[in-house]
């Protein structure tokens, strides 16, 4: 009796709880350009939205399905190319409105994943990862060999405002493009979220956890993987269509291993274990990429270092860290952690500052040897990389920082264990 009562009451309240975050997200998407209206900010927001869709599609495989796709950019790239050709056709007078281009990209992604999936879906784990990598390399080579179709190294471009106007919008201005891109991104994210709650979505988790057992419950695990691969390709292709709109150019670089590596990094940094994790990762890494990219050319080193640190010490990513602390903050035990967490801060800051100093000096030195300009500050200090002193300072900072971390981190971890262990009992 009580079971049926809870059954009838749960759906309505959980429905509200489920969709409230989405309403807030929609609101956020709508007002962001009103707050940050500069051209740079709007371009940044578009990139974040595209990266978020791409990372979510990647996590359908990695986090939800347990499949490590090292060639996932293929589906974004080929979807993007197809959307680009559609945009060119629109420029030539075909009636293809710009907001429909992501659908073209999604179609391209589905078709390619349906073909690629035939090759990869039979394998699991390492073999799966290897095959996706090889397949991607082959496709990049193919793209470069067909310059009439893919424009060679330069890629192909078109004009997003050259299509038919819709309600007086020609989508040429950044803000109009932003609303097209962000609306699609939001819709795609919602659809991917709903997918996790379908039978196929749940099957993907089952195949991740224990593919063999799925086979003894009447399902062919290879078929499940194949279907998920196609859905993942769909949303990657859609992200490609969005990128075509935003950049008005797609090149072979959008297909290659760099792009595939970038999405892996984002997804992992954000966290693969939650739905929102890849979005967090996409937003942060894109922000870092564009913000740091204007300050230093070495930002990719930092990106890589952050990735390594996350893999080693926070394999659940940022969303994993949040998940581990949310219950403690809610029940007030979070405050118990604060002192021990604060004690790790000096070591943290020192280690980061020292490492950044070393990287920047190495980069500067290399640039000076190559005929670049001398002088200028490193980390707000007038450090000359051609002298010994700043190197020693940076090296000492790094070493001391790491030593401090080694001393202060275990008690912080212990405090967390103690606090969260207390809640379970």
């Amino acid at each position, binding site marked *: 009796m009580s079971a049926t009562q809870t059954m009838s009451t749960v759906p309505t309240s959980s429905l509200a709880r489920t969709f409230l975050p989405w309403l807030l997200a929609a609101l956020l998407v709508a007002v962001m350009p009103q707050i940050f209206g500069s051209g740079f900010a709007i371009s940044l927001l578009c990139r974040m939205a595209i990266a978020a869709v791409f990372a979510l599609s990647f996590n359908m495989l990695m986090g939800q399905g347990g499949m490590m796709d090292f060639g996932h950019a293929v589906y974004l790239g080929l979807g993007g190319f197809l959307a680009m050709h559609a945009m060119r056709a629109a420029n030539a007078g075909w009636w293809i409105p710009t907001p429909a281009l992501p659908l073209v990209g999604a179609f391209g992604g589905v078709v390619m994943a349906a073909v690629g999936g035939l090759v990869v879906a039979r394998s699991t784990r390492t073999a799966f990862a290897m095959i996706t990598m090889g397949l991607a390399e082959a496709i990049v080579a193919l793209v470069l060999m067909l310059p009439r179709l893919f424009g060679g190294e330069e890629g192909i471009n078109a004009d997003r405002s050259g299509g038919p106007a819709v309600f007086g919008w020609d989508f040429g201005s950044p803000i109009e493009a932003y609303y097209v891109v962000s609306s699609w991104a939001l819709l795609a994210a919602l659809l991917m979220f709903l997918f996790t709650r379908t039978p196929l979505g749940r099957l993907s988790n089952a195949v991740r956890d224990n593919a063999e057992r*799925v*086979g*003894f419950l009447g399902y062919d695990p290879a078929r499940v993987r194949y279907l998920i691969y196609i859905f993942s390709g769909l949303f990657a292709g859609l992200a490609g269509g969005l990128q075509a709109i935003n950049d008005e150019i797609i090149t072979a670089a959008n297909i290659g291993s760099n792009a595939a590596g970038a999405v892996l990094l984002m997804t992992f940094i954000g966290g693969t274990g939650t739905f929102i994790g890849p979005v967090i990762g996409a937003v942060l890494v894109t922000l870092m990429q564009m913000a740091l990219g204007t300050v230093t050319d070495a930002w990719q080193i930092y990106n890589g270092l952050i990735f390594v640190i996350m893999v080693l010490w926070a394999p659940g990513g940022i969303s994993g860290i949040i998940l581990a602390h949310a219950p403690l903050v809610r029940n007030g035990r979070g405050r118990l952690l604060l002192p021990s967490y604060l004690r790790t801060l000096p070591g943290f800051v020192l280690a980061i500052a020292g490492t950044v100093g070393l990287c920047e000096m190495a980069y500067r030195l290399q640039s000076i040897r190559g005929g670049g300009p001398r002088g200028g500050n490193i980390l707000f200090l007038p450090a000359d990389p051609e002298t010994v002193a700043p190197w020693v300072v940076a090296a000492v900072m790094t070493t001391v920082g790491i030593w401090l971390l080694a001393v202060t981190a275990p008690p912080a971890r212990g405090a967390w264990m103690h606090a969260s262990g207390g809640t379970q009992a």
Partner: protein
Amino acid sequence: MIRPAALQLNGVYKSFGLVDVLRNVEITVAAGERHAIIGPNGAGKSTLFHLITGRFPLSAGRIYLHGDDITGRSSYDIYRLGIARSFQVTSLFNRLSVFENLRVGAMRVLGAGHAWWRLLDRYRPLRERAEEMLEMLGLEERRNVPAGLLAYADQRALEIGLAIVGGANTILLDEPTAGMSRHETERAVALIRKVTEGRTLLVVEHDMGVVFDLADRISVLANGNVIASGPPSDVRGDPAVRTAYLGAVAETLT
């Protein structure tokens, strides 16, 4: 007309490389029968299960389900034809909750298939079956716990649950009570008896109490051969069985 046996193994051989694990195994399980397979460690009991459920290919011989040849079919085909199984080494979906494990277990049978256009929660019969199973297994309070974090006995209960939740006609349980306490074993046996009512059960079990309590027939496997097969009373008295396997255990039972 004679009703064909639920499960019939004809001249089944299995070798891994040069090692013969099963040699000319003949077992017939009548429909509705509870049939136990016993034998010392390494006798090939689990291998036999793997052959029946399509995990390994046979080296020779044929397997029939209700008279239909299922030799060489894939494990998912064999499941669809009505054979479900549990594993000796617990094999669950560790990151999914107990409830979700059971839902996945019944999805294929209750029509959800590979659906991606409809939410899982909309499949009412599926939810009801999972709820019903939770109650049967006594796991209601653990319903939202990830299977990997369950206590061992609860994991074993869920292991049985995954095998029976789909309502298969023929159920193969591989050491269902291994590692359970006396009390948990009693509960598991009661559960197995209840859910296999009117179905065919083939069970591998080391606990002789459970075997003689549950089984209508017993087959004894030793060195890859069936050395005896019959009702519990016959098997207990069989001298070959005594020397090969039962020994002291049988003494205490008689």
